[in-house]
């Protein structure tokens, strides 16, 4: 379990920083989640994959932190979509920022399945495990979520001019 936790930390950090925005608080949240997972390790079923179980703990820790926080600071776009224009071109940086804005506008369940696939890099089976739904449902929900995100993105003025809107 200790090795599993160690291996899970980079991914857990991504989950935390995507929900919380602040890197220091995200590191903190990961430590808190690791301690919680360790304390309840007897509840973990070793026959099941480790990460989906741990992810749910990370998620709960983050959502507890978000709950006690004013609404405005929940999204700090700069951390997750910094615009390092010099590094890899203006368009790519603007697009990352636009994707971040569009994701922030999505309802939570829609955003979460996108987080799980695009940022947590979970397989369909692992997503099914986290969401507690059948494997087949994952793909159709993912399709709807991606479509919703693409539509939000089309309406973003920064993307419209190079993507040829609607």
């Amino acid at each position: 379990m200790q090795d599993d936790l160690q291996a899970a930390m980079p991914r857990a950090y991504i989950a935390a920083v995507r929900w919380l925005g602040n890197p220091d608080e995200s590191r903190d949240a990961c430590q808190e989640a690791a301690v919680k997972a360790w304390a309840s390790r007897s509840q973990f079923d070793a026959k099941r994959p480790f990460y989906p179980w741990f992810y749910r703990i990370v998620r709960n820790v983050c959502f507890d932190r978000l709950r006690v926080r004013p609404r405005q600071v929940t999204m700090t776009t700069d951390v997750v979509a910094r615009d390092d224009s010099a590094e890899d071109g203006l368009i790519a940086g603007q697009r990352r920022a636009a994707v971040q804005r569009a994701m922030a506008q999505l309802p939570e369940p829609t955003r979460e399945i996108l987080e799980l696939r695009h940022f947590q890099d979970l397989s369909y089976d692992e997503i099914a495990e986290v969401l507690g739904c059948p494997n087949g449902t994952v793909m159709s929900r993912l399709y709807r979520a991606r479509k919703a995100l693409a539509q939000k993105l089309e309406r973003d003025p920064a993307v419209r001019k190079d993507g040829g809107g609607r």
Partner: protein
Amino acid sequence: MTSHDHEHFEILMMKQVDGFIDAAERAELQAHTTDCATCRAELRSFTDLKTTTDAMRQRLLDDVAQDPLRPDLPTRAINTVGFLALVSAAVLCCGWIGWLVWTDPKIPEILRVGLLLAGGIGLGVFLNVLRLRLRAAPTDPYREIDR
């Protein structure tokens, strides 16, 4: 123009974007997207999206790789053993001193009782503080981060 089993191709598109598609499915999707402009446009927007989020994810991975996170777990098993060893040593030591004091005929009896009582209380307080400190230290989530 779009009289096809849309749901079937939606799923194939997901598999294609996520790299979970097999050769037969890929060929089927490819054949379809050459004819169907709707699916072709959707597939392209999904692929672009994945490229962008992959770059975003990679940047976050780079950030955390610069300063790796190590789970700071409470090492309770070791603490318990260490704590028991400390307690036994302290009790043996105090017992020995106590026995020396108690059997020393040169010390008046009232002083002997007083000394032992004070020693006992002192030992109890010391052990309790030690126990609390040992328990608190490894679970303090701020320990790593404050440095």
